[in-house]
């Protein structure tokens, strides 16, 4: 069952339709409601390797629907410390719950200052409206 459109206030957003939940020097990453809705039901999550490093604004993996492949753009730099195996096994979890059960990876931040460049929910929604 598809989730309804929301952009939680406690998250920070990247214009490429990715979100980050920052908790101390770690962050959980995922894709926004808009991203999963645009793609349609996800059928594949190609995660990065555990322990690999990701750089802000660059690709850290892929998600695919029946029709399309989409790069995952990391909103922040860091090291991959966890991968959501539930999404690997059942990618449609992202469609059902993009912000909680459908998180993708967890990273240890290498530059906590980067968070300042991310968008809050209001600014991200503004970008969606302009599209």
């Amino acid at each position, binding site marked *: 069952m598809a989730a309804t459109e929301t952009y939680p206030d406690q998250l920070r957003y990247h214009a490429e339709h990715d979100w980050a939940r920052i908790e101390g020097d770690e962050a959980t990453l995922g894709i926004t409601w808009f991203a999963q809705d645009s793609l349609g039901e996800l059928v*594949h999550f*190609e995660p990065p390797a555990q322990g690999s490093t990701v750089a802000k604004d660059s690709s850290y993996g892929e998600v*695919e629907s*029946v029709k399309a492949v989409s790069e995952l753009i990391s909103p922040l730099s860091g090291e991959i410390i966890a991968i959501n195996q539930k999404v690997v096994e059942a990618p449609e979890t992202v469609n059902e719950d993009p912000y909680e059960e459908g998180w993708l990876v967890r990273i240890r931040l290498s530059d906590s200052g980067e968070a300042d460049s991310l968008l809050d929910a209001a600014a991200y929604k503004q970008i969606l409206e302009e599209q």
Partner: protein
Amino acid sequence: MQTLSRTPLFDRHVALGARTVPFAGWEMPVQYQGVIPEHKAVRADCGVFDVSHMGELEVEGPRAQVLLQSLLSNDLERLADGQAQYTLLTNESGGIIDDLIVYRLSPFRFLLIVNASNRAGDFEWLKEREIAGSDVRDISDEYALLAVQGPRALDRLGLDDAPAFSFAEGEIDGIACMINRTGYTGEQGVELMVPAEDAARLWDRVTERGATPAGLGARDTLRLEVCYPLHGNDIGPETDAISAGLGWVCALDGDFTGAEELRRIKTEGPPRRLVAFVMEERAVPRQGMSIEGGGEVTSGTHSPMLDRGIGMGYVPAEHSAPETELTIDVRGKARRATVVKKPIYQRKESPSGGD
């Protein structure tokens, strides 16, 4: 900028919240509620597709059959009135200009339903080769085409069963149409050819009877599960019928265009063959990906029924036997697949045969 054509059902698609995409010069619905639920609705019950973008060519005259038999690969002698057959329009080298279904309306009148992207090219090819006593006309704009497909399609439309590849004039809730027992999903079903002005009313009746609107996305996953080739992906002017596994629709004892070349390829054995495969690892194969050892994926997707990646592609003939292991380059990562016998998916019970 080229303007996209819209079918007579475009407003219905918009009202249903469809996502549309450009396809062969048409603005077509790719999905309504989602590819996977639409796909499953067709496998489990019944779906309806707007395929009005497809071309309809009529060939009429005392020598219509002579003309067509010189250009189409299958044996037209096998058709009686009210019967249709899958056939290929071939070029001199045995390549496939188009794959289509030819319907015998009378001994002197045939209907060809062709791929949207090849409508103009097919028409031109036929028109240039017209002989005295044959007249080729493009009647596509006068008609809409609705494909109603699924194990409950006939039941939902209130139609009696009829043999696959038969057709008749009929009506659905008082709307006259040509009812063809054909399709592109591997399920039972019909394709309804209706005057363009009646199309929206027919669509409404069909959906009221419980058919789930389904888009081009599901049409593609459905056809690929049952290994029906898609012209432009799996077959084309550069690929021949024998390599594509379509020798069964070629009357090789005949003398249609390219027959001699096809006989030669059959005798010598084609160097490569179109195979079906399933992924052995999590990955979705896509058109254009290379297959180790000199092959290429021509169609790939995620199978909603098998819940895994599936596809078709050309491989060297020596790698084409079922159970052969393949390695596919999925954006730089080597992923394992296995050649399987076609079709990839087969429905369990088959009351009167698939299409």
